[in-house]
């Protein structure tokens, strides 16, 4: 089993009101010097079987048609090593 991570972020030119709300709260909490915050989504897909080119192509389609709205969002895909049953 492998894990594929899809990160979805609003495109740079799209206003992110949620990120701005977080950024505005920072000085109140004593965090200075952070000039911008943008909020995104991270999807972790546990994939059965090998993550080969065909599997990644399918995940690309999934991200493009469903996980991200490409009118307003960009996405990146990466494969993550899953550590064996660490307890």
């Amino acid at each position, binding site marked *: 089993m492998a894990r594929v991570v899809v990160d979805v972020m609003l495109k740079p030119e799209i206003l992110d*009101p949620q990120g701005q709300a977080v950024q505005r709260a920072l000085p109140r909490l004593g965090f200075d010097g952070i000039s911008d915050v943008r909020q995104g989504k991270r999807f972790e897909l546990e994939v059965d079987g090998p993550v080969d080119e065909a599997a990644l192509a399918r995940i690309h389609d999934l991200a493009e048609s469903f996980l991200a*709205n490409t009118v307003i969002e960009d996405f990146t895909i990466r494969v993550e090593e899953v550590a064996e049953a660490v307890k």
Partner: protein
Amino acid sequence: MTARIGVVTFPGSLDDRDTQRAIRVAGAEPVALWHKDKDLKQVDAVVLCGGFSYGDYLRAGAIARFSPVMEPLLEQAKAGLPVLGICNGFQILTEAHLLPGTMLRNDHLHFICRDQKLRVENAETSWTTDYSAGQEIHIPLKNNDGQYVADAYTLDKLEAEGRVAFRYLDFNPNGSQRDIAGVSNEAGNVVGLMPHPEHAVEPLIGTGRTDGLPFFTSILKKLVNV
């Protein structure tokens, strides 16, 4: 024979009964459609109503767009079936790419509920012929993700082709670009808007006015004349 207008209920739809009622008040026959239906029961038009389909998890309307009922709907809408998307229905239509642009969280981050003044910009779509162009109406608005956005090219194209169907007047409730409250597709059979005409069809409820009723009489007249 009276026109049959389908109203789709998704898990999380809220305004299906009000929409069915509005259709009945206008003199047509509402037909309940379920999100798992694989056919549209031979209706003459469809309304996608307001609410929070599938909880609006992921993005507003994004999961509903892949419901079984959307398959025949997409196909028939492209062939000319009149479809009206109200609020969450509008969001579903943009996610399905039947209408351009998309909806973001309101710019002020609050859910908003108010009587909203609109201008009817296009009185030639399937759903607006009982209005006149430039007419000002009041209908209720209630949404969380109502900020209409599209790239500048798309916005210019919509304006040039008269596809901005409704614009907010006096107050922009959610930061929508160019005060856009509703748009239509190229053929004019698919229309989406954020405010709720189905809540303003009887004087006793909503705004106390019946400014939303012409949506449903427009489509009825169109279907009877076809």
